[in-house]
């Protein structure tokens, strides 16, 4: 146990995981309430095509993925704004486009299947110090931007039209949320993989929504749930010798079920 606590691998995983959890826990609340929970999923697909492109060009796949993901995010907003589509149709279009492009790129080259697989489940137990720094900076940026725009974000999430009339720069903030999500998704891709990054964006936030009575508490509880998922996920990975990413999501699901029960029992905060 003491070896574990001094192990660099463990500490890096924990630290980067907590940073990711912070970003996901906070952003997730806004996404879920804006009924955009699947945007993480859609952007993960877009990021996937970015990774494929990176492997084809044989140049910094994660960085290329980030760029592609940001472009995809902007495209989703543009289509949504000018296409007069229902709900998450724009998201569906872009994410399928991303996936199709990814598969096409993979089949064009057919030479990096295994490398790409690494991003299905992420490698939180094998990240470099540089990636820990990146997660830290991302989390900091998310916290600062959300803090600065906190009231405006609540306003527009709760009542977009009135917020617009009150002079809240809704479009700019929406863009900010989507771009932050895109960055978080790419980081999540590296840490927990394409399949699970959506889970971290959605599950803690949804769990928190079951029991929280105010917006502030929703954010706090969501972040708390995220933290607990990451920490206990990594510890469970040690004790049960199972992949960390899967355990993290498993704990998050348990918390969600717990929150549902707690709501039934009128145990709310």
């Amino acid at each position, binding site marked *: 146990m003491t*070896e*574990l606590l001094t*192990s*660099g*691998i*463990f500490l*890096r*995983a924990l630290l980067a995981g907590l940073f990711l959890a912070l970003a996901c826990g906070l952003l997730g609340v806004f996404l879920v309430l804006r009924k955009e929970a699947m945007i993480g999923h859609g952007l993960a697909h877009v990021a996937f095509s970015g990774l494929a492109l990176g492997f084809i060009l*044989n140049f910094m796949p994660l960085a290329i993925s980030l760029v592609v993901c940001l472009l995809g995010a902007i495209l989703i907003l543009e289509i949504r704004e000018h296409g007069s589509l229902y709900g998450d149709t724009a998201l569906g279009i872009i994410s399928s486009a991303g996936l199709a492009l990814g598969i096409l790129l993979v*089949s064009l080259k*057919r*030479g*990096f*299947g*295994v*490398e*790409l*697989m*690494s991003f*299905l*489940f*992420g*490698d939180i*137990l*094998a*990240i*470099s110090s540089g990636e820990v720094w990146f997660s830290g900076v991302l989390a900091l940026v998310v916290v600062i931007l959300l803090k600065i725009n906190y009231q405006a974000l609540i306003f527009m999430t709760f009542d977009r039209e009135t917020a617009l009339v009150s002079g809240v720069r809704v479009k700019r903030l929406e863009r900010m949320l989507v771009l932050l999500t895109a960055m978080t998704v790419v980081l999540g891709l590296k840490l927990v993989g394409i399949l699970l990054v959506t889970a971290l964006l959605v599950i803690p936030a949804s769990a928190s929504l079951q029991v929280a009575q105010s917006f502030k508490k929703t954010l706090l509880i969501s972040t708390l749930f995220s933290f607990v998922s990451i920490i206990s996920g*990594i510890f469970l*990975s*040690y*004790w*049960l*010798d*199972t*992949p*960390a*990413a*899967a355990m993290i999501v498993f704990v998050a699901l348990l918390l969600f079920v717990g929150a549902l029960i707690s709501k039934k029992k009128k145990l709310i905060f």
Partner: protein
Amino acid sequence: MKKNKVLFFALLLFLFLASSQLARTEQQPKLKIITTIYPLTELVQNITGDRGEVFQLIPTGAEVHNFQLRPSDVAQLRQADLLVAVGPALEPWLPKIETALGRKIKQKIYFFDELKKVGFPGLVEQDPHLWLDLKADDLLVKAVVNQLAELDPKGRLYYSERGQKLRAKISNLDREFQEQLANCRSNIFIVAGHQAFGYLARRYHLQLVSLVGANPESRPGLKKIQEIIELIKKEQVKAIFYESSVTPYYARAIAQETGIELYPLSTGVHLRPEEIKNKIGFLQLMKQNLETLKKALGCSGRKDRQ
């Protein structure tokens, strides 16, 4: 005179038929053989030479387990005389392909089944990396030679000659492995990847420790990583190996903890771009593996002892 004419025409007809027969043997279509992965392709190609045409279903480097057929692959499969594959542990999708084709492929050689038939020692159902065992490769070559001779009896001699040569090369390399991997500073063989080198380790008496099981997609648990780190520290292991075709995230992370050195090994399946470009052969890759192992494990070899 009339008789002569008849004779003449008979002769002409005979010549015509004979020549057309001759032409047909010369233009006889080459045997079409489908393989799944690069090591099989390499071995089979070495046997068939000009008499056969080998098509590798999974491009070198693509993911094997979730392989998907392209239309052109189906066309290739339709014309196949022989399929050489490893077995369901590696290509679980093969039966589905036959259903898709609507018929059975004429002849099949499954590496695993061939070994099972002769009671090959140490077979593990879930571990498909048979080609990394040179003794197993030898048996495969034998089986392929026999099957080809059956499909193309005229080439019997040709195949068996080429087969002999290949088997000699294989057993030479095997002997080199035996000799050079004797007397190592350490025989702890840590692979920060999936369990691909089980057969190889067993053959040359290395003590294999892999990060994950036989499936390259699975992720390791933290406990396993910590155990390996402790093993490295306790036994003062100097080398950790990774699969040369993938970025060694885990090996790097472990190296950062322990200061251990990284060495690439090839599974022969996923080649690096430059290896594909240089058309490096499977046995050459194995030879490289031997050099790497020797250097990394600090082996002095049997000859030095004398």
